[in-house]
């Protein structure tokens, strides 16, 4: 029975970890390509969740539509954020754009409360309750779909970044802005696209979170910005694969930590992880030099 318990905690941790991975992935893309950090990632997750909520309300529980809705809604918000918080401050000291994103996060959160209403909204049974058993391991259909979506999205990102022209342009901007400009890449536009991709990832994560926890609220994004950052520190904030790994690790650490103590210590574990990572390996496990700080 004990092993069953541990296995289920591991599965829970993995599923949560996959969600964190998607969020951290988006975060790493933004920090890497734009070169500036964001405090408003949690609110974009919330926007994605609400976008999919309204689509489900209008068109039934169609996952593909939900994905498209959350993707596009957060892409658009990404454009707004870029214009408002980043474009003007690309050359300025980084604290200015950071504070701009803090202001934007406050704006979005309160606007959402006004427009959507402050109460929790249900996202019931978008995916039916079904449990699959693989030997001693039990995974629910929801968890399956979430992990599957995250894997598909991350792999797509990997392919885009490594094989397509656009992706290589994005990576080169991430590595060295001046050099990228010198070889003729439109740095400004590329940065914006990078930002939008990162936001879109967060938006899809929002939809998945809504489906998993079966409810959404305007303040749901609050702690998720921190989790994104914590997870991304594993990859020095900029490495996409390592940040995703960081997300999975964070999810596992939190859940296993809770299983040996109490759930009210969840934040202790995630902040503990963050502090330890920042103290011992602030640049993450990234080996290459010249990565953005």
């Amino acid at each position: 029975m004990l092993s069953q318990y541990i296995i289920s905690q591991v599965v829970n941790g993995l599923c949560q970890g996959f969600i964190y991975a998607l969020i951290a992935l988006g975060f790493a893309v933004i920090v890497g390509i734009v070169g500036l950090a964001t405090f408003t990632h949690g609110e974009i997750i919330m926007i994605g969740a609400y976008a999919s909520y309204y689509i489900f309300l209008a068109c039934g529980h169609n996952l593909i539509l939900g994905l498209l809705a959350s993707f596009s809604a957060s892409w658009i918000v990404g454009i707004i954020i870029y214009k408002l918080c980043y474009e003007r401050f690309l050359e300025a000291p980084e604290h200015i754009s950071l504070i701009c994103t803090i202001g934007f996060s406050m704006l979005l959160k309160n606007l959402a409360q006004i427009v959507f209403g402050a109460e929790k909204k249900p996202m019931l049974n978008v995916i039916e309750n079904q449990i699959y058993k693989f030997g001693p391991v039990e995974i629910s259909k929801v968890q399956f779909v979430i992990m599957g979506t995250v894997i598909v999205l991350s792999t797509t990102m990997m392919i885009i970044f490594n094989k397509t022209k656009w992706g290589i342009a994005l990576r080169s901007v991430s590595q060295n802005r001046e050099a990228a400009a010198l070889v003729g890449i439109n740095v400004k536009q590329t940065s914006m696209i990078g930002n939008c991709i990162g936001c879109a990832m967060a938006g899809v994560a929002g939809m998945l979170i809504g489906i998993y926890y079966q409810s959404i609220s305007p303040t749901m994004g609050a702690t998720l910005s921190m989790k994104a950052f914590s997870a991304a520190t594993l990859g020095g904030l900029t490495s996409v694969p390592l940040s995703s790994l960081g997300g999975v690790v964070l999810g596992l650490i939190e859940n296993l930590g809770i299983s040996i103590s109490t759930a009210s210590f969840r934040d202790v574990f995630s902040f503990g992880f963050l502090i330890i990572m920042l103290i011992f390996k602030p640049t993450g496990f990234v080996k290459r030099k010249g990565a953005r700080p």
Partner: protein
Amino acid sequence: MKKNFVKKVTAVLLAGTMVASLVACGSTSESGNSATETTAVVDGTSKGTIKLGLVAPLTGVHAEYGQGFQAATKIAADEINAAGGANGYQLEIEVKDSAADPKTSADIVTQFCEDKDIKAIIGDFTSSACMADAPIVDQYQTVLLSPTASNPDYAPMSEYCFSVMYNQSNMAPWVGKSVIGKYMGVKSVAVMYLNTDWGISTNEYLLKGLEEAGVEVLADETYEENETDFSSVIAKLKASNAEAVCILDQGNVPTIINQIKSSGWNPLLVTQGPGASQQLLNLCGENAEDLIITDSSYITEDNPATKDFYQKFYAINQCAPTDHSLCAYNTVQMLAKAIVSIGDGEVTRESIKDALKTTSYDGMAGTVQFDENGGGVRQFLILGVEDGKYVVKEDYGFE
């Protein structure tokens, strides 16, 4: 050069806004800047108006409940005024937003107390805010009647502190002994509770009741208020093999129920705290079937007792009312009843306080009165959920 000019102009404009706000703030002083509630019925026999203050979180993380207070108190005051007022006095409610920040709440309560026209204050939502307000109302000798403060330390802080929401020392042991032990008849239970003053004290009293009934507590887990993923806690409870799960929480209960069901586990579920509201049924859907819930009433459209309130509330806030709003509704009714019982005497802050102590109100949710500390004592039903509706399983007074 032009940029510098633009910057200077903007700086001057901002400074100007600052000064203008200062002037605006100063000139409108205490009773301005806020929404005044209720349309007073113009009636020749009206004795005048009694003003009440409402301090609640209209913004911030508890905005849902604060806005609920606002709507519910308005409904109550409108009903009372339309029926001729409380002993002939029209009720007027002034609302200010505390954002559930105890400091802001204390400042607003001070402002209310300074306004001689305000005879009693309703609010705040969180126990933290109420406890920060307590020394102030004690100093100014004004009643502070909270719909929902449930920290057992709050009401004893001052004879002017009252709270409608049940004192855990009454309700929780009853839930343990009579609901779980006797009515449900289970031998073992796993408990999960919210890590706040409400949750901790409720859990303490619940365990006492369970012990008395001889029910074994196989797990007793706590978690933070802003928790969203309960899978780890649920896994722990599942591993304990208890027959039933008791959830002590308010806003998270629907999420917890959903996550328990989607983990493939089907224990008997009993909950105390969220209140039997339509919102819970909406958020849980069929996951709420066979749930046992204790409350002083259930607030849905099909309950003839609460239907009217439900519809009026929905018309204002576009969402279903919760138990918290019902408690807010009750506060106005109880104050009105207290005013009525003063009779021909003068309605002052002191006389309201004295009258409130002995007020007992019989409304759509059983009888409400106060114990010697000012903590609310309510009656409770045992409710079940069948076919997506609430069903009364046991009436008030089940032992």
